[in-house]
């Protein structure tokens, strides 16, 4: 079992224009791309939306990580193709895959380039209460830790003869118990330790907290925001008046 897929959402410090953007801009980017992906189901339009996302991946030097995350979803894509072709059309399955690729890419760009601390600050600037924002950023910070722990649990159980058995759904689910229970127990223990450690540092004792770092909109952020909103409005107009677009954009597979 591999947790490579998790890597696609783990922040890495780099100095690129994407990393230096304000987290709120990147959140807007991810949201607008996801909404656009849901709005359309034409293969060519989705494909062009997907292509237009490429510059961001390249500017952020995220190509390798991005490929990993897409590769991690191959199995899901196969399922989508099989089920959609059986119960719907082949075209539908392709547009579903493109949709998911756009959404995963845009959110993995967000989590790969936003420092967990900045993530919290951007939530705070959206008027989310500090307690909730802090727990949210904390939970993201612990994703890789838990992935490592899961690997250690697999190692420990394999060392005493545990085997990943093949078989029916029920026996496979039963087979997960030796992995899941230690994982839950260890996570709960860690949660209590964190709570104690927070309490011992007087977390939440005063209402007005001092923030060491701050986030701010720069010219780059404003520029990208304007472009994104324009892009979004364009998308809505096109959706409302499909006659504006050439016919070949609406091409589908015959099956």
């Amino acid at each position, binding site marked *: 079992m591999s947790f490579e897929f998790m890597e696609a959402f783990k922040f890495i410090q780099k100095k690129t224009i994407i990393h230096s953007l304000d987290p709120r801009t990147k959140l807007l980017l991810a949201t607008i791309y996801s909404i656009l992906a849901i709005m359309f189901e034409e293969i060519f339009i989705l494909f062009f939306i997907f292509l237009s996302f490429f510059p961001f991946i390249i500017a952020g030097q995220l190509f390798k990580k991005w490929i990993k995350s897409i590769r991690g979803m191959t199995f899901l894509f196969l399922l989508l193709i099989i089920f959609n072709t059986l119960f719907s059309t082949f075209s539908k399955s392709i547009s579903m895959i493109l949709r998911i690729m756009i959404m995963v890419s845009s959110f993995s760009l967000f989590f790969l380039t936003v420092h967990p601390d900045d993530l919290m600050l951007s939530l705070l600037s959206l008027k989310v209460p500090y307690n909730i924002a802090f727990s949210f950023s904390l939970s993201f910070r612990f994703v890789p830790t838990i992935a490592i722990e899961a690997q250690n649990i697999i*190692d420990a159980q*394999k060392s*005493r*003869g*545990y085997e990943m058995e093949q078989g029916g759904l029920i026996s496979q689910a039963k087979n997960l*118990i030796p992995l899941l229970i*230690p994982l839950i127990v*260890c996570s709960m*223990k860690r949660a209590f330790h964190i709570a104690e450690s927070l309490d011992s540092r007087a977390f939440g004792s005063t209402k007005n907290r001092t923030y060491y770092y701050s986030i701010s909109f720069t010219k780059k952020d404003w520029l990208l925001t304007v472009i994104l909103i324009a892009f979004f409005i364009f998308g809505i107009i096109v959706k409302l008046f499909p006659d504006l677009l050439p016919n070949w954009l609406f091409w589908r597979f015959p099956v």
Partner: protein
Amino acid sequence: MEKKLENLQILVNHLTYHYPDGTIALKGINLNIYSGEIVGIMGKNGAGKSTLIKTFNGLLKPTTGVVYIENDDVNNVLMSKLTRIVGIVFQNPDLQLFANTVEDEIRFSLKNLNFTKTELENQINLTLEKFKLKKFQNRTPFTLSGGEKKRLAIASIMCRNPKIIVFDEPTIGQDAEGVEFIRNLIKEKHSEGKTIIIVTHDIEFAIDNIPRTILMADGLIIADGPTNKILSQDQILNIGSLISPQLIQLSKFLIDSGFKVPDNAYLKENMIQFLGSFLKEKMEITEGGKP
């Protein structure tokens, strides 16, 4: 047992290991471990100790080089066979305890060993008795104390009767009683002819219980030899970020001050004997044993 070729149990040749994320954990390890030896593996965090032991039972496959366990290349042996020969006791018992009762926890370890039902129950009972867990038999493992959990984790490996036993940091977080238990267990398994490998940072434990030490640094073995020799050479200690055990420091100090200290004074009994007889000679003892 002697270090003869037919007693060679683990042979590691030019072993390297690269993690999928690109970290190079092992950079060319050569190592022979003979049947019945007690071997310590020491070194800084990140030196590659854990990676090395995980290649012994097939958890990690060598990137290049070979690891032979009992004349079988680990690349060609099923993991289920390897884990019967090599039992690794991991540091944190919480990573493996999951069953409803202590008894079930042992039963899980014996599941794939082709025991008949009576053999299985016998083995469970024997293990519970031996590890003083009989009274907890029907309790859930999660309510046990730290030391008891550790005992259960060790029991769940020992019941499989491996020929090679690997302990990963056995003494960490254990009270005196727990350390004493592990010390006795190692002695007992050694007398049964098992090969024992101990990854540890505990130098005082090592000098008392481990005759041979391998010191690792940065993915390589930088020293391999008698523990007392390795833990008394300043140059090696510096590279491995280790401090000499107290008795080695004391005997060095005494030697530097011109006393004739026996070579084996790094062991407590020998040092007590030496100092005792020395002091008796030099000092008058008054009535009641007080000078």
